[in-house]
């Protein structure tokens, strides 16, 4: 009897072990949760939702296996939504807004067997949790390309005598004055300047990710201040609406702005989130571990620009865009090539006598918010999103005026 019992015990242990080792999940059994700051009516979340549904479909996972938590604010509601999804049996849980991060990390600590992935966050690399991940896309590459489109438009305006070369000032409606936004507008500006050397840019912040009225007002203020082209890092169609009314060309974000501004929109930069969702879900299905940080760009199809508006872009734009995209994919063109810009001296980086970057750090280790670790000036370029997925380029370069109020 005793022997039988011990045999049984051994058998149980062996079975238990194999169950552990092969944590594979069948596509029909996986459950996915997603926590969204908005719903399908809001461009940024819609882009995430569509990305996840598309990626799931490609892996043979039906939409019914995905549970969405819509309109989740950046409060304890995010934690509660995550816990609720965990209790519903989700194997992997995504959250899409920056401010969800600390709450998702808290839930990840409580449920070590579930994978938690947070978009645009910065702390996964230092959190010490195996099941907590950050993801982003190299949107700066797409912004650079959309900047090229803007620069070509400026050139057309200069050639037609509408403005002088000195008047080629662009306006940028930014959300918050931190790295994610600064990295975005700098890449946009560098793209524009690569074809229109006299371009300058003025940035104003709304201190909100999505505020239709405020974005419209900010765009109007920029236009009143002499900006002849507007771009944005904010979620609504506020800025394009103002541009359409004022007859000023504009470059959008996340979604094509052509429906909102048919006579003004040029193109938009956008992330294809399906690239990450496919990657993460595949790993969860296979039971394999995946890195704390993920970022990919043009070469992996994770970023792109939306349809060029034939009614507004100058002739030859498509060809130039194709050329720049090829160079980005091949790695021959680097967005933050240090020979292409100068900056005044500042904290967290070093410049030479002409203002060219010689050294810069990606992350902060001592809590004073000045980057002091991980050198990122490598091979003549600032290496964005290589240390962590969220952008860390936060230098205000020459040619850009940022108005912080």
């Amino acid at each position: 009897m005793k022997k039988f019992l011990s045999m049984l015990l051994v058998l149980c242990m062996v079975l238990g072990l194999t169950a552990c080792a092969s944590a594979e999940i069948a596509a029909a059994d996986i459950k996915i949760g997603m926590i969204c700051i908005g719903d399908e009516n809001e461009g940024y979340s819609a882009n995430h939702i569509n990305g996840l549904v598309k990626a799931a479909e490609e892996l043979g996972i039906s939409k019914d296996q995905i549970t969405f938590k819509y309109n989740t604010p950046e409060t304890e509601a995010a934690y509660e939504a995550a816990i609720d999804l965990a209790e519903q049996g989700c194997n992997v849980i995504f959250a899409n807004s920056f401010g969800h991060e600390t709450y998702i990390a808290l839930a990840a600590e409580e449920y070590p067997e579930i994978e938690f992935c947070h978009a645009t966050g910065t702390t996964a690399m230092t959190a010490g949790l195996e099941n907590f991940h950050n993801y982003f896309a190299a949107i700066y590459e797409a912004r650079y390309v959309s900047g090229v489109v803007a620069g070509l438009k400026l050139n057309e305006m200069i050639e037609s005598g509408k403005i002088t070369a000195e008047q080629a000032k662009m306006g940028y409606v930014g959300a918050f004055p931190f790295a994610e936004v600064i990295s975005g507008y700098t890449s946009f500006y560098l793209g524009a300047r690569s074809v229109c050397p006299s371009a300058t840019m003025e940035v104003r912040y709304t201190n909100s990710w999505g505020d239709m009225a405020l974005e419209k007002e900010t765009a109007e203020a920029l236009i009143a201040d002499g900006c002849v082209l507007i771009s944005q890092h904010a979620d609504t169609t506020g800025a394009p609406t103002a541009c359409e009314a004022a007859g000023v060309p504009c470059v959008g974000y996340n979604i094509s702005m052509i429906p909102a501004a048919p006579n003004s929109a040029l193109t938009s930069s956008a992330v294809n989130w399906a690239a990450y969702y496919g990657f993460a879900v595949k790993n969860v299905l296979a039971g394999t571990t995946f890195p704390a940080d993920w970022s990919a760009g043009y070469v992996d199809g994770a970023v792109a620009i939306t349809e060029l508006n034939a009614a507004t872009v100058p002739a030859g734009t498509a060809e130039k865009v194709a050329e720049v995209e090829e160079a980005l994919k091949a790695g021959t063109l680097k967005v933050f090539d240090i020979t292409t810009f100068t900056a005044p001296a500042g904290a967290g980086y070093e410049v030479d006598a002409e203002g060219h970057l010689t050294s810069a750090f990606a992350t902060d280790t001592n809590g004073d918010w000045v980057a002091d670790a991980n050198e990122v000036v490598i091979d003549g370029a600032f290496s964005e999103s290589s240390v962590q997925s969220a952008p860390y380029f936060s230098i205000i370069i020459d040619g850009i005026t940022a108005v912080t109020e």
Partner: protein
Amino acid sequence: MSAPVKEPLFHVVKRDNAGLMRSVLVRVIAIVLALLVSAVVIVLLTGMNPLHVYAALWDGAVGTSRRAWITTRDAAILLCIGFAVMPAFRMRFWNIGAEGQVLVGAMATAAVMIYGKNLPAWALYTLCPAAGIAAGAIWGVIPAFFKAHWNTNETLFTLMLNYIATQLVAFGIIFWENPPGSNSVGLINAKGKIGWLPSIGKNSYLLPILIVVGLALILFVYMRYTKQGYEITVVGESENTAHYAAINVKRVIIRTMAICGGIGGIAGYLLAAGVGHTISTGLSGGRGFTAIVVAWLGKLNPFAMMVVAFGLVFMEKGALEIASQFNLNENASEILTGILLFFILGCEFFINYRLEFRKHNKEGVKA
């Protein structure tokens, strides 16, 4: 003499005294009617089975033990904010500044948690609520002081203080945001959970609930059995009577608002240290205004207010689940809440008044 006045089809007569049974019955009928109308709306708008939608509503609010705890805790917080307006309303002092009183309370709590994270635990557990209560009380006393001495309009005053409180919090976030420029503080003291309201066993929801239930009992006794509670009622009924009874009206107004603000501060403390563990301009999330609905629907009675607060949070949580399960937009569930509130508020009319129809007899013809 003149042409005979035609009697209207019906006229409204005030009921002298609506019996308890009757008023409960009317409310139950109102809820049933609201559910029926909602069902019709659901079928017309979405073509879904309303029973499934109601099941999801129930499921979202209390479907799992975790959800039931969260719903109860959030109801307790809403109730606590309701208590921050109730004594003032008894006094006919229109305190619509609970939102601001909660925010400054939460902000003071957050400040202590951030700057005092190296203090011993007992000091934090005393200082945090003390700071929250003090900040809330100050925010409540400011309009009361002006009302008592110069008879300023407290409705406008408390309302505007809400906006000042919001801006104060926005200002504080500039110093505390993490990372800078993001406008978000995130979890305060996430490592070590310093200053966080402790869990009882493994349950982090129970303590805030117990605190608010305790508060309800204290308030009930205070309002009904103490001299101060009586003074509040007298001032509310008639200031002249109060003067005549040698009640110091100014003092009662200021004292009561200090209590109201202090209770708002407790809610702020619970939100910052027990629920959100953060500070943001949206921390109160409009609950300062929903609390007014709680107070009036609950007839300013602490126990009736409990029922109302739970009902409102129940609908809110259920609504989220409807959005998630059926991909119905959040607005759809707000329509349901709206219908329910419409019927509940509407039935008050039938509790307090009755309709008298034109009598089909000779008397009517004669007139």
